[in-house]
């Protein structure tokens, strides 16, 4: 144990003194990710979208006692667009993100019981605001359609002498959605949202694997490159102490960088959520947050445990880094999948493949904690710890002084 402490003492001292690298890896994401969020919101505010609405219509219509004019239709659309930060113009003298054309006969046709009107929306290629404008316009047109359909249903009902319920004509099928938990009991909207947040937290683990693999590569192969390795290996320090010491110390730094990365990502999502009036942190219970932090550390350890057996048998930095990149990519795939896919609902072949990877269990540990299923959560936690321990043991067994000094012999 004391031998491990000696290695950890030196490694931590060494890494903490590399302030620039530490700042770049650990602190930068903490500031950069929220800054990206703020600047993108600010930049969006700086770049108001412009929509041109061109009206060629001079017709009028009449439905159920209400005058229909394109001027009213356009006024409503204009208000909707302006409420969402768009500028609306009625002639094209400079760049516009989207253009809406109201053709002649619009009001007459929309009031008719036999005709339809077409509204033309033209978007500028490459405009980031055009899609947002399209959504607003389509939503507004849907509301306008519903209003017109309601008037027409009432008028037809009146003409036929039938007592009409507008909803039973326009929306005869109504959808009611509810979410139930594992036991079949309904859960609240907040509880359902927590599960989605847990998926997002699993996804955020994507950022924690990179720094730790870089550190372990430097910790082992760096010793070789800096010519300190041979002297170290000739000492009586037990090999298990050397490997465990290096894994533990790099995992602590990896943990720090993992925290700052994950925190930076949470802030990245949290800042815009405030604009929509949602307190994201309020929705994450302490148990899920704790599970998330445990998953960060265990994911860091998983990466180290996966990379170490190869690093200690790599002859060069490049070979070790290439393998580290493979591990990081695998981790990224698992965490990305966990954002969209229920791993446990996949076919047995896919499931078995994913179960081999420790990252899957980190993701499922967070998921089951969020679902308040402690037994399942603990099962995946135990598997995760078992896989990590086995891999570290494998590293100790594979350690060869000759291999690490000379590479492949």
């Amino acid at each position, binding site marked *: 144990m*004391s*031998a491990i402490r*000696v290695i950890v*003492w*030196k490694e931590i*001292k*060494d890494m903490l*003194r*590399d302030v620039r690298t530490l700042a770049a890896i650990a602190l930068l994401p903490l500031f950069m990710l929220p800054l990206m969020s703020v600047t993108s919101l600010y930049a969006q505010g700086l770049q108001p979208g412009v929509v041109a609405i061109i009206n060629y219509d001079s017709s009028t219509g009449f439905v159920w006692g209400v005058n229909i004019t394109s001027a009213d239709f356009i006024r409503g659309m204009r208000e909707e667009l302006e409420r969402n930060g768009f500028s609306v113009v009625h002639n094209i003298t400079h760049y516009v993100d989207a253009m809406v054309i109201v053709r002649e006969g619009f009001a007459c046709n929309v009031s008719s019981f036999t005709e339809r009107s077409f509204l033309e929306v033209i978007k500028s290629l490459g405009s980031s605001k055009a899609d947002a404008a399209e959504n607003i316009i389509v939503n507004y047109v849907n509301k306008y359609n519903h209003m017109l359909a309601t008037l027409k249903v009432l008028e037809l009902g009146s003409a036929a002498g039938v007592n009409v319920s507008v909803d039973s004509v326009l929306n005869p099928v109504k959808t009611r959605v509810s979410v139930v938990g594992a036991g079949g009991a309904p859960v609240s909207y907040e509880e359902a949202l927590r599960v989605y947040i847990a998926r997002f937290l699993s996804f955020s683990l994507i950022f924690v694997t990179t720094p730790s693999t870089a550190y372990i590569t430097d910790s082992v192969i760096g010793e070789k490159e*800096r*010519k*300190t390795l*041979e*002297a*170290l*290996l*000739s*000492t*009586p*320090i*037990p090999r298990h102490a050397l490997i465990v010491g290096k894994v533990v110390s790099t995992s602590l730094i990896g943990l720090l960088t993992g925290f700052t990365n994950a925190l930076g990502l949470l802030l990245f999502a949290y800042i815009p959520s405030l604009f929509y009036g949602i307190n994201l942190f309020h929705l994450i219970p302490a148990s899920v947050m704790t599970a998330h932090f445990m998953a960060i550390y265990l994911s860091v350890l998983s990466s180290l445990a996966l990379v170490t057996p190869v690093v200690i048998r790599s002859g060069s930095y490049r070979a070790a880094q290439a393998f580290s990149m493979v591990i990081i990519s695998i981790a990224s795939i698992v965490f990305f999948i966990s954002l969209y896919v229920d791993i446990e609902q996949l076919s047995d072949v896919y499931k078995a493949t994913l179960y081999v990877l420790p990252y899957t269990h980190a993701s499922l540990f967070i998921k089951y904690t969020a679902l308040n299923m402690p037994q399942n959560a603990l099962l995946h936690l135990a598997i995760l710890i078992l896989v990590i321990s086995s891999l570290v043991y494998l590293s100790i067994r594979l350690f060869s*002084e*000759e291999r690490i*000094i*000379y590479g492949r*012999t």
Partner: protein
Amino acid sequence: MAIEKSAVTLRNVVKNFGRVRALNGVSLEIERGIIFGLIGPNGAGKTTLLRILATLLKQDDGLVEVLGFRLPQDKYHVRKHVSYLPEDAGLYSRLTGWENLLYFAMLYYDKGSKALEVAELGAKISNLSERDLSRKTSEYSKGMSRRIAIARTLMIGSEVVILDEPTSGLDVFSAYSVRRILRDYVKNHAVTVIMSSHNMIEVEEICDEVALINRGLIIAQGAPRDLISTYGGRNLEDVFISLAGEVE
């Protein structure tokens, strides 16, 4: 452990790296308490031989014994009694000179007080000022770094000290300083030093016995003066050139 007269015994040691034969049946006996020099050109097998003695490489064939312990089987025992300075040994550049010494002391000694005592001895051996010892070694000159590396190897108090090219790449003053450290240490401690060098004059000056190695074979062994008188020439360099030339 039986008390062996020899510090190191090698019998027909062979080491290959792929198709390259680095050691081609080396046999050698090194007595305890002497400074033993291993001299030879680049690629002769000096570093390979020293790495085998330092437990970093395994021989493919032949017998290797250090202080009566057989290698590679007893490597954990050997590591407790042997300290090794590789060629161009680096230091941990973000640690201070003192921390470099303390780290190695802690790798050998569990007890903190003993490790401190050993590191203090290392500081004394290095002959660097307290101010220099508290500086990061990234700020050191090559000579200062080598003094710390030598001190780190000697302070442990190992029975066998292996030094691979301890003065290589140093200027005249730094090389002199390293030799002085080595001589002073050996004078006061019962230790066997095995060192390799390109510098035959240096070896002649400080070694009690030398072995000349070429193409993985020991071509001569003995006290420098004996070798000079046996093979003729003004110095070891002449001896080596005449013997290596015969081999060529």
